[in-house]
């Protein structure tokens, strides 16, 4: 079955290249509106300053549950994939889903150490079919994109390829969770907000953490 992604970009106002920009479609809470419950749900206070948390925090219980999943999937690196490869899976998924801002944020994190920056830039510029120059990275990208596709295309080959390059089952679970989480994040944010051209973005928003 050849079904296009449900959230495929189509609007003519979208930027034609992948940049760090985006803004919510609905009104966020203003700085005077959040209650202690809202602040608790953000888990990290710094997130209250980003428009992409100020909007979803309107539903604090849902946000808090999601934030805990976020931290467990991306920050718990005792076992499984290194952080950079989790971010690579997120970058690939976000690029695949047309999620401009998030793709760039994850690209920055995946590009540590900085020797990988050009490889990540190429992924964003050329798309998820590009050769990152690293067999293991290519395997992560392929598996993450297959899992993000609708309908899901992730199959035995996406387990076998990273395994043949030394990935453990814990590593593969991390690819699955990272890709699944950002399929969700991309879909949520594409419904709540819209990528915009960088020159329309207020300078004060540039460089903030984003919509995770």
């Amino acid at each position: 079955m050849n079904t296009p992604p449900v959230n495929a970009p189509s609007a003519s106002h979208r930027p034609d290249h992948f940049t760090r920009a985006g803004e919510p479609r609905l009104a966020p809470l203003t700085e005077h509106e959040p209650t202690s419950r809202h602040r608790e749900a953000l888990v990290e206070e710094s997130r209250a300053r980003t428009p992409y948390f100020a909007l979803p925090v309107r539903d604090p219980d849902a946000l808090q549950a999601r934030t805990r999943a976020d931290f467990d999937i991306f920050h718990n690196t005792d076992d499984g994939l290194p952080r950079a490869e989790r971010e690579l899976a997120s970058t690939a998924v976000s690029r695949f889903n047309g999620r401009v801002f998030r793709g760039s944020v994850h690209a920055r994190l995946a590009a540590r150490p900085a020797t990988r920056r050009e490889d990540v830039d190429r992924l964003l510029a050329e798309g998820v079919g590009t050769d990152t120059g690293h067999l293991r990275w290519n395997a992560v990208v392929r598996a993450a994109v297959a899992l993000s596709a609708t309908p899901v295309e992730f199959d035995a080959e996406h387990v076998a390829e990273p395994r043949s390059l030394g990935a453990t089952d814990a590593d593969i679970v991390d690819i699955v969770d990272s890709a699944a989480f950002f399929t969700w994040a991309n879909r949520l944010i594409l419904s709540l907000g819209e990528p915009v051209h960088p020159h329309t973005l207020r300078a004060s928003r540039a460089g903030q953490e984003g919509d995770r």
Partner: protein
Amino acid sequence: MADVGWFTTAIVTLSRLVSFPAFQVRPVHGLEVLSRTEAA
């Protein structure tokens, strides 16, 4: 939705509700594939 009377917070909640299964089905699918794929 706003035009027909939905409050912003309710739209956010609905967006969360309908986007969550996009996550839910993927770990289930991925772990199922992993569990039935024998190590070479």
